[in-house]
């Protein structure tokens, strides 16, 4: 029980951010994380603690993709409406900039650049976005990412490469501007 609480406490913020980047909605992201937590605890609470992270991420991914499918259907049915999820979209430019540098190797990359990257990630197609977040932020291997997303290794490599390419182009643009 304590282990599960610790695990959820450790992962909940990142899970929320991943869902928020995917849905662009705070409320929907909270709902998705809550559902994922509930499913993990009720269905897989008895499993070994080492399996919780991939299981939780898999549930989260499925919830995010379900949400996207529903949104796509809604946007097709009600094509004249502006999507609600755009209403509370965070504005990267409004984020508070910190003035300290984070890494000697990346000293040229400012906090402002980090915010630009987040905005770029938010704009990525859902599969590329989730693949990139799982690989880069959660530190999953190619096979772990493939298992969590329910796709094959080549698709993971392809999504990750495309996401990286877009971020590289953004970085190039930002460095040219500086």
């Amino acid at each position, binding site marked *: 029980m304590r282990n599960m609480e610790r695990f959820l406490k450790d992962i909940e913020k990142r899970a929320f951010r991943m869902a928020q980047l995917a849905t662009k909605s705070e409320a929907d992201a909270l709902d998705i994380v809550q559902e994922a*937590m509930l499913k993990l605890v009720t269905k897989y609470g008895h499993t070994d603690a080492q399996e919780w992270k991939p299981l939780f991420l898999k549930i989260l991914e499925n919830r995010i993709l379900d949400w996207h499918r529903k949104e796509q259907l809604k946007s097709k049915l009600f094509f004249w409406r502006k999507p609600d999820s755009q209403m509370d979209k965070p504005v990267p430019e409004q984020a508070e900039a910190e003035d300290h540098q984070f890494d000697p190797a*990346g000293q040229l990359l400012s906090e402002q650049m980090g915010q630009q990257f987040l905005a770029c990630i938010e704009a990525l197609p859902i599969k590329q976005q989730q693949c990139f977040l799982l690989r880069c*932020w959660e530190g999953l291997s190619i096979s772990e990412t493939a298992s969590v997303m329910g796709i094959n290794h080549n698709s993971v490599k392809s999504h990750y490469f495309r996401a990286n390419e877009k971020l590289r182009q953004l970085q190039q643009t930002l460095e040219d501007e500086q």
Partner: protein
Amino acid sequence: MSTYKHQQAREQAIRHALNSSVDPLSPNVEKRLQQARLAALDAQPKPWFRFQAPWLGWSLAASLCLAIYLNIGPQQTPELTSNSELDAFILMTSLDETELDIIEDLEFAYWISQQLNAEDTASASHRG
């Protein structure tokens, strides 16, 4: 800087930006996440042997003991298989000491009469 180093630096910057974006989250979101976590933990299925109410366990244990006692108890008394045996048992337990002596005397008289009869038949056969 090589392409690989560029990628490493970029990924590190992105990780940093992502980590900064969740630490801290708004108080409202943190509160909602905490509520979600507690609700999920509260919904965790309990093992079947752990009772929600402690009195339920005790009452079941007491019922089990009573059932065992009732099952074992009657086997300690002699089983009476027929009505005649039951009647004889009731009769024997209801007699007092004098009545028992009389019954024993009657048995003795019956036995001695049988012995005498046996002797008579034996002497008659000798004579014959």
